[in-house]
Structure formats: structure tokens, C-alpha cells
């Protein structure tokens, strides 16, 4: 775009980076304009990440309000109606406006850099996908002021993030709460599918010379897998939302139980999306771990092929486990047994991954910098999340645990303990690449330890009220149930996590202006993105790179012992 990257004749084998001198800063309007009209994958990636971080804070505030309300029984801090809106919006926000966008943001930023490409396969589709997702988020939050306005919290959705029929039908949800929910999820689904198609086309068609599929770093591999899952799993949600809208706007009867429609059908359709969605969110977290853990253990990833196979295996198995969310809905005993077994099978590839990470660390020289600290916490927490997942897959036990706080604790272990922790790790790891400056390590350590303490106070303890019979999605509880003290510990942990996130946000802003300059390769890493300046120029690579192994920079740094000799 700015300067054509012409290789210097006669100098094959040497790259001269022609980073242009800093252009004069534009006016604010020009800067904003350049971000709005951009089709650059790096800028769009950052837009996704910033958008998601803003909603992370919003959803965090909702979580804090929820925890204040549950601090004592029969609390009247918020009304029942408001509470229902809060947990619905918290869940919907975290999944659709934080999880998906931030993961797509990293995918956008990193996949082309890691495979040595100039941009995504379809830059304009990329911009379209981002802006339609952004529209979806803004529409969803407009619901707070739409309808009767802020005082009554407007028309914000209030039916839980899985919005079981027939509660969502006109008969039980008059007004526009469900309309906001359905339309914004439909829009964000279109954005997600667009980005997923883009990532698949990028990974399969844009790799640099020499980068065969089995020489790709694991991150693009996992993103391709995730994108496949998005395509086959988000589409059913899109279809189900279309059906819901046909019911609500055109008077259809898909989920209208009074006209013979079925509540179970919605549950099936939703979880056909909903369960793979968990893997859509967690596979990118694995992808970050696959990049970060080897660099800080100073060893190549153990069992690359097994890691690829396990990821693809998880994706396929995850398509056949959805009804484990429905063990209490009245399936036959055979159906319950089938979904018990299929769910347990997921633990095999997942176990392979954990063991491979362990083997990667084994024999290494581990550096405990903040990205690695978060990755280590991730390993422990994901192990526990996997084990509680096995407990929930035991269909008979699930009859007790289903829809209780045990489930809430389990999926927060996955979504916070694994995914959010790895998102933090990824931000510490790639922030220098994106901005050219390091995040502050001291603040990072504070962030990490407060986060770990808060997380375990909240989510370890949260398993117990579930086993003591506390259902999820209740705005208050009875004082005689023995849940009060437990809920107070959970809430306190939540507040501590809130403080940790505030420190992190401060670190992000502070380091952007005052952080130490990073240089091209601050972590002594091995993948292509570290071969170019931080932040990378608009054209990424001055000369199209060419690779001969999975760790091109290792080959260059260790010419006496190149990977390419072993692959």
C-alpha cells in the first residue's frame, strides 16, 4: 500500500526492511476515518480486540451487580426483572460480544502473519464481518435504553442465554426483548460465519512458499478447525433464530407449543450450536497455549501431529455431544447413555493435549514471565474444568447437577479459567507485536496473582452451592438453605477479579504510552510474526518469506541445529 516491497536484485537471502519513515500524524478525524474504512487485517484485528475488551468490562460490571444481589438472601439490590436481564446479558455478551470477537481479533491479526501472508483472503469481507458484529453488539445494548428506557432497564433480553422456548414466544414474552436478542445474534452470526470463511480461505490459500499444511504453526491449524466449527455450528443457530423470528413476526408455530410446536426442538437446535460453541471458544485458547508454552519452556511443542489430530478430533466429536445439556428433558435411557459416552469421548483428545503440554514443559528451561504464568494457571484450571466436565457427562449424576450452580462453576472454569486466562496470556504475549511496547511486568504480576486468587475464591467455592441444591438463574434465595456464606465468598472473589481486570486495563493504557519499547522479537520466539518490526508495517513482510520448517526463526537462530533437518 505505502511502499512496494521490492527485493533487492542480487541479494537473495537478505531482506531489507523498508519501513517507511513515520508519516505525519493526521488529525483526529483522519485517524478515526482510517480506522473506520480500514481493510487491513491487523487494524481489524485490533478493532475486534478493543471492541471485545470494552464488552468484557461491561459484562464484568454485570457480573459484579449479579454478585452484589446474591450477597445476602432476599436481597433487593436489583429487582427480579433487572436481575434476569443482567444474567441474560452477561451470558450473551461474554459469548457473542467478548469471546467470539476477541478470538476472531487474534485470528485476524495473527493468522496472516504466522503463515507469511500479506492479508486475509478477503479483506473487504473481513471489514464487513467486523462491522456487522459491531452493529450486533450495539443493537443488543441499545435494548437497555429502548422500550421504556433506562429506569426499567428497557427491553433488554431476560430469558437466559439459551432462551428456551416457549418462553421466547409472543405469548410469554410480549414486547421486544426477544426481538433484540434474536436480531443481534442473527447479525453477529452472519459476521462470525463471514470471518470463519475468511480464515479458512486464508489458511488454505494464502500460505507462504514452503509452508505445507504440516509446517504451519499450530495456531493457524486450530483457527482453521475453529472456523470449520463456526461454519457448521453457528449456522444452525442462525437457522433457529430465523425460525424464532418467523414465529414472532409472521405468526409461525415452530416453537409455539399451543399449536403443536415443540419446546424440545429449540433445545436441540440451540445446543447443536451451543456445545460446539464452547469448543469454538476454547480451541483458540488452546492455540495460544500452543504458541506460548513452547516459547517460555524453550522447547518445540511435543507431539505436533498428535496436537493437530486431537484438535480436529475435538471438533468432530463436539458435533455429537450436544444433548448432554438435555439429560433432564426426558430423553430415553438409550439416548442418555449415548450422549454420556460421546461426551466422555471428548476427554480423550483433550487429555492428549494436556499431556502434550506437560511433555513440552518437561525437560525445558521455563521462564516465568506473565504470559507463561497465565498459561500455567490455564493448565491447572483446564484440568479441573475437564474433570468437572466428566462429572457432568455422567448422565445420572447430571440429573442432580444440571442447571445448578455446579454447572455455572464448571463452565466458568472453562470460560474464565481456561479461555479468559489464555486471552490475558495472549495479550501479554502479542501486545508488544501489536503496539511496539511491552506491557508492564510488575503490574502483570499483580494482575495475575489477584486474578488467580479471585478466580479460585469464586469458582472453586461456587461448585458447592450447586451440590447443595442451588439452581442457576435465580435472583434471590431462601435464607434457610445454607447457601449464604458460600455465596458471600463467591461474591468476594468476584470483586477481587474485578480489581485485577481494572489493573489490567490500566496496564494496557499505561503501557501503550509509557511501556518499554519491544523490538521485533522480545520473547526470542520462533514463528514468522516475530521476524518483522513491531508494530508490523501495513504490508507485513517486505519480501515474501519462505520457510523450511515449523519454526523458521529457530532455523535462522540455530543454523547448527535447524528443525528442517528433522521434519
Amino acid at each position, binding site marked *: 500500500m505505502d511502499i512496494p516491497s521490492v527485493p533487492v536484485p542480487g541479494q537473495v537471502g537478505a531482506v531489507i526492511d523498508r519501513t517507511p519513515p513515520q508519516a505525519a500524524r493526521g488529525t483526529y478525524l483522519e485517524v478515526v476515518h482510517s480506522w473506520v474504512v480500514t481493510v487491513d487485517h491487523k487494524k481489524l484485528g485490533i478493532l475486534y480486540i478493543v471492541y471485545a475488551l470494552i464488552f468484557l468490562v461491561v459484562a464484568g460490571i454485570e457480573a459484579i451487580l449479579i454478585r452484589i444481589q446474591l450477597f445476602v438472601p432476599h436481597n433487593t439490590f436489583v*429487582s427480579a*426483572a433487572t436481575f*434476569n436481564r443482567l444474567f441474560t446479558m452477561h451470558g450473551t455478551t461474554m459469548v457473542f460480544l467478548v469471546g467470539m470477537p476477541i478470538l476472531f481479533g487474534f485470528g485476524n491479526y495473527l493468522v496472516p502473519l504466522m503463515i507469511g501472508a500479506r492479508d486475509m483472503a478477503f479483506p473487504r469481507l473481513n471489514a464487513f464481518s467486523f462491522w456487522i458484529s459491531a452493529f450486533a453488539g450495539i443493537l443488543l445494548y441499545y435494548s437497555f435504553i429502548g422500550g421504556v428506557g433506562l429506569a426499567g432497564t428497557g427491553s433488554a433480553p431476560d430469558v437466559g442465554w439459551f432462551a428456551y*422456548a*416457549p418462553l421466547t414466544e409472543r405469548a*410469554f414474552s410480549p414486547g421486544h426483548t426477544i426481538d433484540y436478542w434474536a436480531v443481534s445474534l442473527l447479525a453477529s452470526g452472519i459476521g462470525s460465519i463471514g470471518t470463519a470463511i475468511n480464515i479458512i480461505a486464508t489458511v488454505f490459500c494464502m500460505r507462504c512458499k514452503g509452508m505445507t499444511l504440516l509446517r504451519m504453526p499450530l495456531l493457524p491449524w486450530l483457527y482453521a478447525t475453529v472456523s470449520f466449527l463456526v461454519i457448521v455450528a453457528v449456522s444452525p443457530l442462525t437457522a433457529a433464530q430465523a425460525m424464532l423470528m418467523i414465529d414472532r413476526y409472521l405468526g409461525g408455530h415452530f416453537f409455539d*407449543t*399451543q399449536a403443536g*410446536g415443540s*419446546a*424440545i426442538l429449540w433445545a436441540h437446535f440451540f445446543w447443536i450450536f451451543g456445545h460446539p460453541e464452547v469448543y469454538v471458544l476454547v480451541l483458540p485458547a488452546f492455540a495460544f497455549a500452543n504458541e506460548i508454552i513452547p516459547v517460555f*519452556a*524453550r*522447547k*518445540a511443542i511435543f*507431539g*505436533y*501431529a*498428535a496436537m493437530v489430530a486431537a484438535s480436529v478430533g475435538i471438533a468432530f466429536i463436539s458435533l455429537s455431544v450436544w444433548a448432554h445439556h438435555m439429560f*433432564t*428433558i*426426558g430423553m430415553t*435411557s438409550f439416548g442418555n*447413555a449415548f450422549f*454420556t*459416552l460421546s461426551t466422555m469421548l471428548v476427554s*480423550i483428545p483433550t*487429555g492428549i493435549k*494436556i*499431556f502434550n503440554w506437560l*511433555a513440552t*514443559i*518437561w*525437560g*525445558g*528451561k*521455563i521462564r*516465568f514471565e506473565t504470559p507463561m504464568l497465565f498459561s*500455567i494457571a490455564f*493448565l*491447572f484450571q483446564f484440568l479441573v474444568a475437564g474433570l468437572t466436565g*466428566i*462429572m457432568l457427562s*455422567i448422565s*445420572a*449424576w447430571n*440429573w*442432580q*447437577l444440571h*442447571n445448578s450452580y455446579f454447572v455455572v462453576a464448571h463452565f466458568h472454569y472453562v470460560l474464565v479459567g481456561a479461555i479468559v486466562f489464555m486471552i490475558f496470556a495472549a495479550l501479554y504475549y502479542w501486545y508488544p507485536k501489536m503496539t511496539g511496547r511491552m506491557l508492564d511486568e510488575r503490574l502483570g504480576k499483580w494482575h495475575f496473582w489477584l486474578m488467580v486468587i479471585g478466580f479460585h475464591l469464586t469458582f472453586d467455592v461456587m461448585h458447592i452451592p450447586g*451440590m*447443595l*441444591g442451588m*439452581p442457576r*438463574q*435465580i*435472583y434471590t*434465595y*431462601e435464607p*434457610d438453605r445454607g447457601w449464604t456464606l458460600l455465596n458471600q465468598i463467591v461474591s468476594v472473589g468476584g470483586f477481587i477479579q474485578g480489581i485485577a481486570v481494572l489493573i489490567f486495563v490500566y496496564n494496557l493504557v499505561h503501557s501503550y504510552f509509557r511501556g518499554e519499547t519491544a523490538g521485533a522479537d522480545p520473547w526470542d520466539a520462533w514463528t514468522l510474526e516475530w521476524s518483522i518490526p513491531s508494530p508490523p508495517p501495513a504490508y507485513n513482510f517486505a519480501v515474501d518469506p519462505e520457510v523450511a520448517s515449523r519454526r523458521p526463526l529457530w532455523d535462522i537462530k540455530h543454523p547448527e541445529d535447524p528443525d528442517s533437518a528433522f521434519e
Partner: protein
Amino acid sequence: MTAAGALNSCAAWAASPSTSTFSTASTPAREVNDLSFFVLAISAAIFIGVSALLVYALFRYRARPGESMEPPQVFGSVQIELAWTIIPILIIVMLFLGTARVLFSVQDAPKPATALDVTVVGHQFWWEFRYPQFNVVTANELHVPLSSPAAPRPTFLKLTSADVMHSFWVPQLAGKTDLLPNRVNEMWIDPLRTGLYVGQCAQFCGMQHAKMLLRVYVDTPEQFQQWIAQQQKTQIEIPGVTQPAAFESKQNSTANQRPPAQLKPASLSSIVPDSITSRDGQLVFEKQACINCHTVAGTVANGRYGPDLTHLMSRDTLAAGAMPNTPENLKAWISDPTTFKPGSLMPAMRLTDRQNAQITAYLLTLK
């Protein structure tokens, strides 16, 4: 409620009555509990094993200052990969077999001829219980007989919903089963100890999902028969009663487990003035919209939308467990249900204070 309190051996910190899934009082819950300890033990072993390896590796292989050499690069090992694929498969086979045994034995348990049938209908935000064998309908407080090993009498519940999805969950008795419109699900319990067991709706069903509480009274067979006999009586047009009868005499099969009625007749007059008769109350009740939704068997009130009120005074709580059934609460509830349960589908009828008192007086006679 002291009897129920004694059950909390596992969850000692929990106040009575318990909702702990570990403090079981019925076969389905007990079998699940045994299974859960089996799974917990295996999970704990895995957790300890794997995290011990992790902790060891993190400590043993930490970078030491002054070392600049990279460690030896190892890329993988097929044998090791196979090992940690096969061992989890074996563990899964074990877990699955354990689960399948409990799953089939609970879910496909045959129904004995002695079983009691109860139909449970979920409503926003209360429970309707029907005893088709006895032609009894009640709400929110389920009475079932004890099922001793000597004389097993399990209760088989048919669950359905009148509106949206709900879920029936009394943790001490069994796992939960959802109630769906257009569909009948089944579950069973065989309570092995008498007493009160509590639970609540476990599937989000709307604004007052949190206050869709559930109470199950396990009676001795004799008490249960008495209770059924009482519930089978219809209310007749009662000739004018100037004062509701004394509450202490509230005769009930499980009276020994109930708290004493909290109201003394003296304070009652502040709620229902002496000049008001239950007869007037019945007239008001039957002329208002009350009877469109509520049934009082034997009278013109035969609505089906709200809870059956025929024996309202035999219940301990009002509005699906939202508050104790005292005359004071009853009158406040009639005056404006939203003070206790905003979002409740019972409208505030905007009656005069006198009319509310009259209706209260009438309802207080429905024993």
C-alpha cells in the same frame, strides 16, 4: 421441621431443611450419590496425579540464572502418545459402565402396582399436584407416603407444563426432571424417611423463577390417608361465621412437624375486623374475578388458571413458598401480589381494604 433437620448429616453447615444432593432420602438420589462418590474418587486421583507431574516439571525445569543454552529439542514420541490415549479410554469405559448401571436402573425402573400416581403440572410460577387415584388437587405442597423396604410404596410423577418449561427438583429425593408443555415426562421417588423435603424449579421459567419453591411432605401411611381424606372433602356454602375458627386447631396429618400457627386470635382482629364475616367474604370472592382462575371445590369457583384453593389453610406457605401462610401475609398477598412476587401472574384486583379483609376471612375458613 426438626425431623428434616436431623437428616443433614452430610451437610452439617446447612440449615434445615436440607437441599443437599449428598443427604439422600430416596433410592434414585441415593444411587446417584453412590455413583457420584465413585466418579469423584477417580477424578481426584487423576487431578492429583496430573497436577503432581505438572508441579514437579515446573519446579525441576525452571530456567536458572546464567544459563543461555537452549534445552535439547524433543519433538514427540509415538509410544508415549499411544499410552496417554489408551489409559484414558480405559478410565472412560469404567466410568461409562458405572453410569450405565445407575442410569438404566433408575430411569427404567418398573412401576409396582402399589405405586402412588401424582400428576405435576408446572405453571408460571407455582406447582399443581393432581392425585388421579384419589381425585385430589392441590398446589405447591406435595404430600407423599413413606415407602419403607417392608411396604414399598413409591410415588410415580407424571410431569407436564401448562405454559413454559420448568424443572422439578427436590435434591434429597431424586435428580431433576423437566416439565414441558405438550409432553409428559416421568420420574419416581420412594422416600425412606418422613419429614419435609424442599426444592425448587430448576429451569428458568420467567420473572419469578427464583420463587417457584417446592415442598414435599413425606407422611407415614396413616398420616397420608388422613391427609387425602381431608383433601377429598369439598367446601360447601358455609353459613355465616363471624370469626374464623382458632388456628391452633388447624388439623393436619403432619401437625406434629409444623410450626405452631403464629397468629393469636387477638392480633387477627387487626387483619380481619370482627364485623366481617367469612360469608360476606365468600360473596365478594365469588363476585370478583377470583373464581375465573381459582377453584374452591363444592362452590361456583372452578377456575383452573391459578392454584386450587379448596384446602388453602392446610398449607404452610403461600405463593409457591414465597412466604408463610399467615392471615397477615394472606391479606397482603390478596391486596397486591407484586409486593411479594413482582411478575406473579395474579393481578392486584384493586379492591377496598374491607373487601380484601372479607376475602381473607373467607379463605381462612378453607381448611
